[in-house]
């Protein structure tokens, strides 16, 4: 338990209402989007200014209290779970959009701004911020930076790190540091901003974010293609990517998701299909027209059944909704849902899907599959029950096989979710030991007392 005087000091720093201590309230900060982990903090603090964040960090550092940064807690890595107790520093009340500059094509926001609120504000001015994690209704931009998040648009537009121009970061000792600026070009010293991007809250607290923007593409078109065979769908994606056209999104949904979504909200999805690709092109009307035709031609040649344009905006919206409901379909399907986040090179998709089939057959586990096929980032998922020790251990072993298959094909452990708690047992296999050691050294320089989100990314050495 934290000493009473710490709570008193926290209350003094941020105000009484911004400090939560009841058992009930703490319970609601013990989880994220995963199903495997839960741990309650000892106190939740909700600052509204950078100065307050700095005060909290000073206090925590002096008293060596763990601090777990948290946005909306929509992450799926265990990253925002306060596994060591201590303080949850929640940024949801720091939610002001400070500036949108249409001429400079930049925006500066506080970390607790919700992505969908940001998108709404930008749309009013004809502007576009592409990184689009599927949790956009809940997730915060601070969380997006800390996890270096991405979503379907990444095929054409890249991930969060490709849009960052400047950050304000509060260090573990409470010092407030500015990195980068508002210019697109900036070659001043090391790219320290990238240290904090994807740091999963282990190196500092992000308190201000400046991103670059794009004009909203004037036209877009959605296409759908149905496949009897998942491998063929995977090959079709590779064919498209190699054909000189870059769609904005290519999403993959398997039969399990099609059926589950259709059960939850009947919308007329092709329930017999073994795979469904949902694609989008965007840009000028003429380019969109030409790209769409080219993509449909390739899909047809690749063996898709009746690839076609969405009839109208309503049908397009329906297919995209089905895709985003896929998350619910999967995560609500079992007591414990183990979702992989591997990414493989885009020309290895079909091969990867074939290997998943083999692993499934061998292990006896059904492997559910959906994801961002266009960037090779699929989410093979296993349904299990953590309460059944034997089965859970087998599920974990199967997960390891999936990850190793991805690695053999030149893939990575995590495409977009981050390591957090969920994937740390694989880190040693996925990263050069010298690189892991370097990360630990950087961590020690920036956070000598190991108070920032301790217990995440790498497994702790057992003493």
């Amino acid at each position, binding site marked *: 338990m934290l000493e009473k005087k710490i709570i008193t000091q926290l209350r003094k720093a941020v105000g009484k209402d911004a400090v*939560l201590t*009841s*058992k*009930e*309230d703490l*319970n*609601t*900060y*013990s*989880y*994220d*989007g995963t*199903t495997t982990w839960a741990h309650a903090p000892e106190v*939740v603090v*909700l600052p509204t200014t950078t100065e307050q964040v700095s005060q909290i960090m000073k206090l925590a550092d002096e008293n060596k209290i763990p601090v777990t940064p948290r946005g*909306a*807690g*929509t992450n799926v890595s265990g990253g925002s779970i306060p596994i060591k107790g201590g303080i949850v520093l*929640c940024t*949801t*009340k720091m*939610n002001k959009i400070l500036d949108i500059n249409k001429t400079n094509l930049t925006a500066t926001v506080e970390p*607790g701004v*919700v992505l*969908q609120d940001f998108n709404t504000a930008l749309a009013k001015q004809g502007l576009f911020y592409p990184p689009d994690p599927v*949790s956009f*209704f*809940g*997730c915060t931009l601070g969380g997006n930076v800390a996890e270096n998040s991405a979503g379907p648009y990444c095929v054409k537009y890249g991930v969060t790190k490709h849009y960052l121009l400047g950050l304000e970061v509060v260090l573990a000792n409470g010092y407030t540091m500015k990195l980068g600026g508002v210019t697109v070009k900036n070659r001043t010293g090391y790219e320290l901003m990238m240290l904090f991007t994807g740091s999963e809250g282990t190196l500092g607290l992000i308190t201000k974010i400046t991103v670059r923007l794009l004009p909203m593409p004037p036209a877009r078109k959605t296409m759908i293609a149905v496949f009897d065979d998942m491998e063929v769908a995977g090959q079709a994606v590779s064919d498209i990517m190699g054909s000189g056209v870059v769609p904005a999104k290519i999403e993959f949904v398997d039969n399990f998701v099609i059926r589950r979504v259709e059960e*939850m*909200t009947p919308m007329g999805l092709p329930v017999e299909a073994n795979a469904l690709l949902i694609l989008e092109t965007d840009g000028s009307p003429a380019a969109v027209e030409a790209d769409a035709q080219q993509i449909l031609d390739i899909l047809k040649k690749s063996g898709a059944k009746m690839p076609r344009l969405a009839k109208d905006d309503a049908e397009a919206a329906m297919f995209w909704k089905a895709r*985003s*409901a896929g*998350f*619910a*379909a999967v*995560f*609500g399907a079992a007591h414990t*849902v183990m979702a992989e986040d591997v990414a493989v090179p885009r020309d290895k998709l079909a091969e990867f899907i074939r290997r998943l089939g083999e692993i499934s057959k061998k292990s006896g586990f059904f492997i559910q599959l959906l994801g961002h096929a266009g960037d090779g980032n699929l989410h093979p998922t296993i349904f299990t029950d953590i309460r059944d020790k034997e089965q859970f251990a087998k599920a974990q072993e199967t997960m390891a096989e999936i990850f190793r298959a991805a690695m053999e094909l030149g893939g990575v452990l995590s495409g977009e979710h981050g390591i957090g708690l969920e994937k740390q047992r694989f880190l040693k296999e996925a990263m050069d030991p010298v690189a892991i050691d370097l990360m630990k050294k950087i961590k020690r320089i920036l956070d000598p007392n190991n108070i920032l989100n301790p217990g995440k990314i790498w497994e702790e050495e057992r003493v």
Partner: protein
Amino acid sequence: MAKSKQDRYEQIKRFESDLTQCMKCGFCTFFCPVYQEERIEPSVARGKNMMIRGLLAGELDYTKEYAERLNKCTLCMACTANCPAKANIPNVIVAARADTVKARGLKFPYNIIYRWLLPRRTLFGRVVRFASWFQGIFLPRTEGTIRHLSMFLSALGKGRNIPQIAPKFLRQIVPVVNKPPEGVKTTMTVGYFTGCMTDFVLPDLGKHVIDFLNRNGVEVIVPQEQGCCGAPVFLGAGDFDTGRKMADSNVKAFEGLDYIISDCATCTSALKDYPKFLADTPEREEAYTRFASTVFDISQFLVDVLKLPASAYKPSAEAKGKKVTWHDPCHLSRHLGITSQPRQIIKSIPSVEYIEMPNADRCCGMAGTFSLYYYDLSKQIADKKVEAIKSTGADIVASSCPGCEIQLIDSLLRNRVPVKTMHIMELLA
């Protein structure tokens, strides 16, 4: 005697599938009016649901803090409407409130109001009358046609602009049987569930509803034995025992009638919720289910059952030539799926211009007793609604829930926005 585990979680267990359906994606944070103001996890459906899971897991108990957090929900259903997993967390919250009441009891003064006063219609009427004598002394009087009491005991002294209690209650001025005037053929008979608001505060509205139906060939029965719908009791406070008493007496009061209409979205929805929450025996299940199937919202009844032609909708003097916008009561739109019927009626009225407001179905923050417990929060939620109304440039905001109307009157006055609040039936001649 220690209660068995099953007993302690009796109602929650009935909604276990909703409880487990949530997969913590956090989408509800974007749509929850309470979370949008407070921005803390215990405000939102995901947090409340996890707290309830914590209770079942034995990590939490029926504490004051737990009860308080459960209480802070308007049951607007925006979470469920936008939930990718379609988890009905408001169901779980109502059930959890009921189990909490069992475990902790109701606290003064609500125990007096819910258990003793609301189920006794005549006595309740006398208390309301008594309170009305003092209302002018303690509270600012409101202008306009709508007058209100609200839950006077709590509202007193909070400075809210609340409408006045009527000098004569509806049931003191209309007979039980109201037949169509001579020359108009009676095509059907309906029971009129007046609700507390229309009865005590808006008798003119009630009279107008009866007149309108009579003129269109509908005989209207106003049973004297009907009481409060029970919404504040079983939905708000989680007092299912008292709720059952009220449900039983309402079912009995309307026995033999095939259609029951209500001009209050909350009442309509609460009456239809009897089987879901209150049916504890096969007999009640059957009686409540039948009863619920006969209940219709007034606009739904006019459009879907009576199928009135557009020509039946003529503007009242106050509505003639005005711009009108519509506020969807949560109990009408998300609870009952009634959104097109009221719009169709308003659009049919000659000389009235209909303007849709942004987020018309967003909760106004009233939510009955919620606004008494959390008046400041309720005001913050309402201010967003006021902005939306203002943006339309309408002269009148129409709705069909006296609860919402009170909130709209208070909020528009407080923000000095000169838009009049009216019940949809008051737009009609």
